[in-house]
């Protein structure tokens, strides 16, 4: 009798354990890539490593403006890095949550993963991490970046799950609005005959990964999408235009490595993006952009984070650059004309490192 009682208790205990484990880790329903321009910011992710001084001014200005209902997951190698960031930032209204990973990493969150969410807000967010990180073989911090999607997932008690994609990409190669995902042209070159047989196969795999219709750009600047285009909702796409900046450039006192690139070849790539967006039925709004001859350093005004708090209250956190005030103002006016409240973020310290606000901040959840 005593043995039987023990066996019954043991079986009941095991059933409870299995049930708890099953509930917590229910299969993830397919989701759709989170739009750049729909909904209010709820959770964002940034990365910080000690001595990355260049990103602190950007974080300081951005985080201090975020409202109380936004959670910022701060990924750092160690507690000391997190404390250094908090000291530099000062007081914020948003909630900061540290995610300590214990390995090297960079400060750029955008390219590490894309996030998809199902229609059910109770479902976990799914992160898709690229197959590998460019440069990881000889760049230890980049090798550490490969693990960050899983570090984040493991810190959230099941609210976020991560998987590794079969595809080579940077998160910044993809840009989603409500219905579509735009993918930079060179994503094909990264994958053709390496992970896929053809362009169509790549599109099909991206479609499965993002849950949205994929528009693979035929031609685009050799940079991440958020450096030359940004979705503004209602099928409106803001696309960079070097020719608009060229007119203003003589009044700009900012330096670019190698000087600005206002060549016809570069202009053609930006125009090709605009043309393809129009063919897809988008209203295209052009905005001044200055690419440099190194191909990576941009004074860009589409590298933004938008926050649609309500149907009428739209905020854009807009990169600006000291010495480029005439450009800053022209760009701000474009966003104001689109109905946005413009909140400038000084990115003078980061643009020389090939990225700005949107590159530093990844969005985990919108409501």
């Amino acid at each position: 009798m005593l043995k039987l009682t023990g066996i019954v208790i043991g079986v009941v205990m095991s059933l409870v354990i299995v049930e708890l484990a099953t509930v917590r880790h229910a299969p993830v329903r397919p989701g759709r890539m989170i739009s750049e321009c729909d909904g209010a910011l709820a959770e964002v992710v940034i990365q910080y490593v000690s001595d990355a001084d260049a990103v602190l001014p950007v974080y300081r200005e951005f985080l201090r403006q975020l409202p109380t209902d936004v959670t910022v997951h701060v990924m750092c190698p160690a507690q000391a890095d997190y404390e250094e960031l908090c000291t530099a930032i000062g007081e914020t209204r948003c909630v900061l949550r540290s995610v300590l990973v214990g390995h090297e990493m960079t400060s750029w969150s955008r390219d590490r993963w894309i996030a998809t969410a199902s229609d059910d807000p109770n479902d976990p967010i799914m992160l898709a991490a690229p197959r590998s990180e460019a440069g990881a073989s000889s760049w230890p911090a980049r090798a550490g970046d490969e693990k960050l999607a899983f570090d984040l997932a493991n810190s959230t008690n099941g609210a976020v799950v991560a998987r590794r994609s079969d595809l080579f990409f940077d998160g910044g190669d993809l840009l989603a609005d409500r219905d579509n995902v735009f993918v930079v042209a060179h994503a094909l070159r990264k994958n053709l005959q390496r992970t896929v047989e053809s362009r169509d196969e790549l599109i099909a795999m991206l479609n499965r990964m993002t849950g949205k219709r994929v528009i693979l750009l035929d031609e685009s600047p050799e940079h991440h999408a958020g450096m030359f285009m940004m979705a503004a909702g209602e099928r409106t796409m803001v696309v960079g235009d070097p020719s608009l900046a060229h007119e203003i450039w003589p009044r700009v006192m900012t330096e670019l490595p190698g000087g600005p690139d206002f060549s016809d070849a570069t202009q053609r790539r930006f125009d090709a993006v605009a043309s393809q967006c129009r063919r897809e039925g988008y209203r295209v709004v052009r905005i001044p952009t200055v690419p440099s001859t190194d191909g990576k350093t941009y004074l860009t005004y589409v590298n933004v984070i938008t926050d649609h708090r309500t149907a009428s209250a739209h905020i854009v956190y807009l990169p600006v650059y000291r010495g480029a005030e005439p450009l800053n103002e022209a760009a701000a006016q474009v966003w104001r004309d689109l109905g946005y409240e413009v909140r400038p973020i000084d990115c003078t310290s980061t643009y020389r490192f090939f990225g700005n606000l949107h590159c530093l901040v990844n969005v985990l959840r919108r409501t």
Partner: protein
Amino acid sequence: MNGSIVRTIAVWAGVSCVASLTVLMPKRLTATDPVQVSAIAQPERARPVLAGEGFELSVRVAGQATDQPFAALKPGEPIRLELIAVSKASETIDVKPLVRLMSTSPVSRMSRTPSTPTEVYRTEPTITLAPGETRTLVVETNTVIPQDVQVTVALSQGSQEIWALGLATALR
């Protein structure tokens, strides 16, 4: 209830719980377990192939027998490549691929991305292939790969281009 009764029940409860869990627990314990979910479903294609009209072309480091899409080189060692051309045509054809070495230099540790690849070598050899023939052509680039520089070997024919091989001096 004395101690021996409690002990007996506890022992049998523990044994049966462990036995039941062994049978009932799903194989995948946690959805975020890196071992489970970080695995790549599809292996990368061994030695990417440029498929043209009537031929296939691939490349590897001369003398390296493996078909991996990445290869390690010693700093200061000139890059020697082997182009492997396979005829799929029923008649003799001339293949004129463009072979380029694209170099990505180290950048500041703060940088978001590696630098824009710059072309450090190019050649456009002509390879004549009889029907069904496989030919291997050695390309002496005389190009040296410095420490921490990554090089991509790009093969193209017409508008089609593939990144056929990655080279670096320090692989993990």
